[in-house]
Structure formats: structure tokens, C-alpha cells
């Protein structure tokens, strides 16, 4: 099938889809799966069949819409009516009221907590208003298992343009001019990376899509690959053409079964449309992609470790030089890019480098998708232009901290990043500013923390993660993370000593300097950034043996506030140690000798009568 035929097919698809026909789109990302979206989708289909409405309304399960806090999400197109937290019992009403009656069901709408206003349309929901969803928007319109949906939205037109009008060198120049930088974390200029691989000697070259996304709390790559796999495939095709590769791999971590499934279907459908395989779109360009599944190791997301994984060895990083661009997979030149980076490529080709480079800051062009999670009201995936401030993202888009608590810090960059405190909330987000603040962009995870989060506990958490995920080869990383964890653990248990902070800093520096790969080299960041901004909290743990946030188990006490206790027996019933004594309507007492600080009573009390000190 040639390029012209693709355009014909596109025309046919668009004609057959009457724009005015209502479509019920149901968000079906992994998050919404957990909310039961498949049952919702099935219920809609059953009801429509029952009422014989197949010709008047379509049902489409789409990729992730991003507003994960409010799932299951149903958006009625073409108006864009936004229904959130749909339940099975709402299905009939949606069909009768909104589809047939063209009326909006108020109780299913999102209510803006600041104004108490009910918002009817997706574009006006505050969560979406300030975003700039160039890459992510299409998730809401595409069924990832239907290539026609992607083609209807101008899909693969960038590939056609490249094959028809551009030489490989011209493609690379365009990507260079756009200023696109790697979205996986390090932010290396993508155009230059492609150039290295292009100039490397050899006929056999590989391109790889890194969907390992090991950073806990980050899931945008998953949602992209799950929801819009063709955008990634198209990007890889363009990259392979530019570099001269004939084979590519999409490496997906094994914890993402839906992404693997949707990507597999997408690859098969692309092949059917002559978009993969030999003589793509009737040209001399041939390229094939296979999927490689990860086996559960954070370090195997590192480029050279990923290579080892595909080759069938343990995922231990390799010494560089030689760099993968020259000697990568099976010794051949290999180009790695992150899922989001690949997804940006078709847009840059279609809209031009100049358009793209006008978004963002001087050093960081384009948009970035972040996963906003933790102590935040509007948990979800947000796409914003580089340069937006943390404050705007967390408060305007994220809706602030739940329960009216105070913002304390936001953690970016995963275990290689650091915590950014409240005084830096007006920091514009870009690669350089985040690094200067002691953190890094990373893959885009943004974990928000409030006054009840203990920063010593956070440091301990990351060090525990790193000592487990370290490959274990370099003494500095293996022992460094283990010993740092031991010291911070002692501090969290009240066993810290004055010299500990200095020792931590010394050890952190040695771990960073001596380790061979990125994991060890950035292992120091969580510790150093929390000490930098929250030193007083560490000192409280060491000197006063107190945990100000009320988290570190060995340093806190649970006790009943007499004035508030109503004697309802709720806490008594849940205590696993039978440490609470009391009678109905009489104030309860916690026996400190038996209390194991599990937190069950605090959770059970409806009167805020239990305090942690």
C-alpha cells in the first residue's frame, strides 16, 4: 500500500464517521480498569443494544484521560460533556437524559471546590484548563486497539511526509532545530543523539523505545503506550528512517500488561496497513518492531542494562565508553529514546520545528507530561509547557493539598531526584532549574508531600528502594546505599548521633563519585536534598529523638484526647494488640506498653480523638 492509498483510506474513514454522531467515550487506562471501567463500557453497550440505538450512538473505550482521581470517566462527544465517578446505576440515565434528551445530568458533573460551580465541559474543568495537551489529548479520542481511530486523527501523516519529502539528514536537522530533549530523565538533545547513531559505522542499527518507567509514582509512559501506541510507533519509524535502522524494540516493564497487550495489537494492525515490515508505504524503507518484556528490575531501565536484558543476561550496566550509539545491542549502533520522546516526533514533523520551539523555555522546549500523585487533590497525569511553575501545577491544576493541610515538598525525578520545598514553589519547570535546586526532571513523577510527611522517612524510603534495586556490582553503590540506609534508619529510630549527618554527606559524595552508572551516581540525591532543605527535621530526630511529622514509629506515641473521645468503642475493636481499654460512653485509654503504633485506631476514629505525638 502506498502513501496515496493511506490518504484515501484516511478520507474514507473520516467520511464514514459522521462528525455529529454522539460518541460515549469511556476512559480505559489501567487506573480506570481498577475502578471497573470495563463493566461500565459493557453496560453501555448492552443498554444501547437493548434499546436498539446502535445507529444513533457509538461507544468507544479510549486511552487514559489523565484525571485519574475522578475515574471512571465518561466523556460524551462531540460536545465534550465530562461525567466523572460514573457508576453502573447511572448508565440508563446517561443514555435517556444526555444521549436522547440532550440534557446534562448535574450530579455526575465535576464540582470546582473553589467556587462550588458545576463544570459541564471537559475543556473547562480546572484540572485541564491550564494544561497544554499536545501529546496526551488524543488519548481521549482513540481506542488504542483500533488503528482507524489514529488514522482519522491525521495519524501516520508525519511518516508519509518524511518518506515523501525528507532525507534522513533533513529529519535529524528538524529534530535538532526543535530543541527536543530526551524525556526519560537525562534530557539529552534528541537530534544530536540521532546524529551519533546515524554517523556510526555499520549497516545493522537498532532503535529502542524505553518503556521501563521504573520511577515509583510515574506512569505517563504507560498511559501513552496503553492509550496511543501508534504515536510511539510512528515516532520510532521516523527515527529509524533517520538513523538507518531496520529493526526496533519496545521494551516494556512486566508490571504493565495492558501496555504490552495494546502495543502488540497496534504493531499487528500497523503491519496490516503496510506501515511496518518490508517496503513501508511502498517505499524502499523497511522496519520491524518487536516487544521485549522486562522482568522486574529498576536498574534495567538504564540504557546499557536494558541492552543486557534484551540480550538475555543479567541487567547490569556496562562501562561507557564505548557508548551504545556506537556499540550497543549485540555490539551494533543503537539509539534509545523514551516513550514520550518518540511520541513528540510526529508532532514536530507535522507542525514544524519552529512551532515546537516556541513552546517552553530557552533550554527546554515543548511540553512535558507529569504524574501528579501523593498528597494532592487532583491525582492524575498533566501535560504542561516547560516553564510553568510548580505552584501553578500543584495548586491551579492539582487543586492543592487534601484536608486543608500545608504543602511541604514535592519530589521529582524519582529515586534519582530530590525534594523541592515550599520556598521554591515558583520555580519554573525545566531541566536546568530542577537540577540546580538539587533534584532533576527525571521521567516526570511529581510526588506531593504535606506537613504529615516525614522527610527522614522519605530519605529512608528512597535509600531502601535503591539498596534493593542496585545491581550490586560496584562496591560504592551496593555498600553505599546499604550503609546510608542503615544510618538514616537509625536516625528514624532515635539512634542517630551528631556525626551522622556529616558521615551521610561524605558517604553520599563517595557513592556518587565512585559508581559506574546513573543509579549509583544519583543515589545520593534523595538524601542530600532532604538534608539540604530539611536539616532541622533530621536534627530533631537526632537531638530531640522526636519526629515532628508524627510518622517514625519508634518516636511517636498514640494517645486519646480526652475532651474529644465519645466512648464509641470503635478504636477498641480494631486494635490488634487489645491495647485500648474503655467502656461505652467512657473515655478510652491506650496502654503504651502494648501499643505497636500500627495506626488502626487513628484510622477508625471518626471524632479526631486520637493524636500522634
Amino acid at each position, binding site marked *: 500500500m502506498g502513501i496515496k492509498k493511506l490518504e484515501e483510506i484516511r478520507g474514507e474513514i473520516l467520511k464514514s464517521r459522521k462528525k455529529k454522531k454522539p460518541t460515549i467515550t469511556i476512559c480505559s487506562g*489501567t*487506573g480506570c*480498569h*481498577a*475502578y471497573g471501567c470495563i463493566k461500565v463500557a459493557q453496560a453501555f453497550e448492552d443498554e444501547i443494544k437493548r434499546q436498539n440505538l446502535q445507529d444513533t450512538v457509538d461507544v468507544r473505550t479510549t486511552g487514559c484521560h489523565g484525571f*485519574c*482521581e475522578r*475515574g471512571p470517566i465518561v466523556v460524551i462527544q462531540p460536545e465534550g460533556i465530562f461525567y466523572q465517578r460514573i457508576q453502573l446505576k447511572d448508565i440508563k440515565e446517561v443514555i435517556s437524559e444526555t444521549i436522547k434528551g440532550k440534557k446534562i445530568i448535574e450530579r455526575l458533573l465535576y464540582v470546582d471546590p473553589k467556587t462550588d460551580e458545576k463544570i459541564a465541559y471537559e475543556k473547562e474543568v480546572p484540572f485541564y484548563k491550564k494544561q497544554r495537551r499536545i501529546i496526551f489529548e488524543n488519548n481521549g479520542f482513540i481506542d488504542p486497539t483500533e488503528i482507524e481511530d489514529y488514522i482519522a486523527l491525521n495519524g501516520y501523516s508525519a511518516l508519509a511526509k518524511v518518506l515523501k519529502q525528507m532525507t534522513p539528514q533533513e529529519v535529524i536537522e528538524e529534530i535538532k532545530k526543535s530543541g527536543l530533549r530526551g524525556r526519560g530523565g537525562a534530557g539529552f538533545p534528541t537530534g544530536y543523539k540521532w546524529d551519533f547513531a546515524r554517523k556510526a559505522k555499520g549497516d545493522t542499527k537498532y532503535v529502542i523505545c524505553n518503556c521501563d*518507567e*521504573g*520511577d*515509583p*509514582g*510515574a*506512569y505517563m509512559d*504507560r*498511559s501513552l503506550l496503553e492509550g496511543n501506541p501508534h504515536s510511539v510507533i510512528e515516532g520510532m519509524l521516523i527515527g529509524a528512517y533517520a538513523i538507518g535502522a531496520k529493526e526496533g524494540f519496545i521494551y516494556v516493564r*512486566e*508490571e*504493565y500488561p495492558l501496555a504490552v497487550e495494546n502495543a502488540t495489537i497496534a504493531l499487528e494492525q500497523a503491519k496490516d496497513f503496510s506501515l511496518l515490515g518490508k517496503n513501508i508505504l511502498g517505499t524502499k524503507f523497511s522496519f520491524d518492531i518487536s516487544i521485549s*518484556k*522486562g*522482568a*522486574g*528490575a*529498576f536498574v*534495567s531501565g538504564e540504557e546499557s542494562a536494558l541492552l543486557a*536484558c*534484551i*540480550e*538475555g*543476561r*543479567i*541487567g547490569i550496566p556496562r562501562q561507557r565508553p564505548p557508548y551504545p550509539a556506537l556499540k550497543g545491542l549485540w555490539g551494533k549502533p543503537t539509539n534509545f529514546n523514551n516513550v514520550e520522546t518518540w511520541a513528540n516526533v510526529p508532532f514536530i514533523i507535522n507542525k514544524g520545528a519552529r512551532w515546537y520551539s516556541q513552546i517552553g523555555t530557552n533550554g527546554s522546549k515543548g511540553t512535558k507530561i507529569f*504524574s501528579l*500523585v*501523593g*498528597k494532592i487533590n487532583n*491525582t*492524575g497525569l498533566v501535560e504542561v509547557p516547560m516553564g510553568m511553575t510548580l505552584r501553578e501545577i500543584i495548586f491551579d491544576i492539582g487543586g492543592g493539598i487534601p484536608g486543608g493541610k500545608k504543602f511541604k515538598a514535592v*519530589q521529582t525525578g*524519582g529515586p534519582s531526584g530530590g525534594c523541592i520545598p515550599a520556598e521554591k514553589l515558583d520555580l519554573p519547570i525545566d531541566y536546568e532549574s530542577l537540577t540546580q535546586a538539587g533534584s532533576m526532571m527525571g521521567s516526570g*513523577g511529581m*510526588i506531593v*508531600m504535606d506537613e504529615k*510527611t516525614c522527610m527522614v522517612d*522519605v530519605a529512608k*524510603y*528512597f535509600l531502601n*528502594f535503591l539498596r534493593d*534495586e542496585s*545491581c550490586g556490582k560496584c562496591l560504592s553503590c551496593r555498600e553505599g546505599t546499604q550503609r546510608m540506609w542503615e544510618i538514616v534508619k537509625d536516625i528514624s529510630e532515635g539512634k542517630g548521633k551528631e556525626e551522622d549527618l556529616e558521615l551521610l554527606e561524605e558517604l553520599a559524595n563517595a557513592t556518587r563519585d565512585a559508581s559506574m552508572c546513573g543509579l549509583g551516581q544519583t543515589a545520593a540525591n534523595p538524601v542530600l536534598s532532604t538534608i539540604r532543605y530539611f536539616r532541622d527535621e533530621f536534627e530533631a530526630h537526632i537531638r530531640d529523638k522526636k519526629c515532628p511529622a508524627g510518622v517514625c514509629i519508634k518516636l511517636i506515641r498514640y494517645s486519646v484526647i480526652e475532651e474529644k473521645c465519645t466512648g464509641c468503642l470503635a478504636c477498641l475493636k*480494631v486494635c*490488634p494488640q487489645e491495647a485500648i481499654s474503655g467502656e461505652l460512653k467512657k473515655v478510652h485509654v491506650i496502654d503504651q506498653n502494648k501499643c505497636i503504633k*500500627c*495506626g*488502626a485506631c487513628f*484510622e*477508625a476514629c471518626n471524632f479526631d480523638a486520637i493524636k500522634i505525638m
Partner: protein
Amino acid sequence: MWREPVPGEASEFESIIKKHPREKKSLIPILQDIQAKFNFLPQDALALVSDTLKIPLIDVVSVASFYNAFSLTPRGKHLITVCMGTACHVRGAPAILEEFKRKLKIDVEETTDDNFFTLETVNCLGACALGPITVIDGDYYGQMKIRKVDKLIRKFRPEKRSKTE
């Protein structure tokens, strides 16, 4: 500790291995298939893979023990996975894990005496809006609370009271 081979298993291992090209790069996909079918990697399976792919047994064991996806010991009937990602951690996942450990009387990566439950942790499933999250046999249970743990365990194992022997 050597586990005696179970009769009939060898032919199943062979049929799994045959589905992949006989190359080093098939090692991890083959192990993933065996893990999916048997819920762990039997020792004689690893020995057979080593012989067939001509990879030294120690290298096969090295790979099998390096990755979280593989279990070298048999798992229980139901797999409980508690998410310990950063977002879930900040929302109280450690307390949920401790409650599971208490109620099941086992530690992480251990199996209950009756082989019913295996308890494991994972470092982020990517469903952070539902945190803290626990997955049992592939089903997601979001917004976990300490008091929901016992109910959830009893949903799978109703007769036995977790506090008695």
C-alpha cells in the same frame, strides 16, 4: 535445597522452550513463560533450559535470581502484592503491609503454612490515584485501609480465623 522433579513436568518445560528460537536472547522470555505457567521456576526447568540453550547453569540461575518477576520457590495459591511506590508510601502503604504481615503471620516473599497466600511487594503499579493499593491475583483493591485488610483476607480464606492456629 534440591527439589525432586515432578513426573510429567519435563515435557511441559520442553514444549515451552520449543516455542522460542534456540538463542541466548530467548532466555528471559522462556523463563517468563515457565513462571507464568508454574507460578515459579522449578530447578529442573532451569537445568533443562541450561542444557538446551547451552548456557552454563550458574548463568541461568544468576538471571533467574536477579529479576523480581521470577520466584525460585513455589508460590502460594493466591498472590498478595502490596504496592510500595512513593505515592502509595506517602499515603500510608507501610502500615497496610505491616497489617498484612501481622494477620498472615508471614514476612514479605514468604508463603503461609497452608500454602494459601504469598505476600510480596512491588515498587509501583502506576495506579497512583487509588493509593494505597493492593493487588490479589491480578485484581486491584484501591484506597486500602488498615481495617479493610482482615476483610480482604477473609474474602479469600473465609473459614480460617487469622488469630487462631
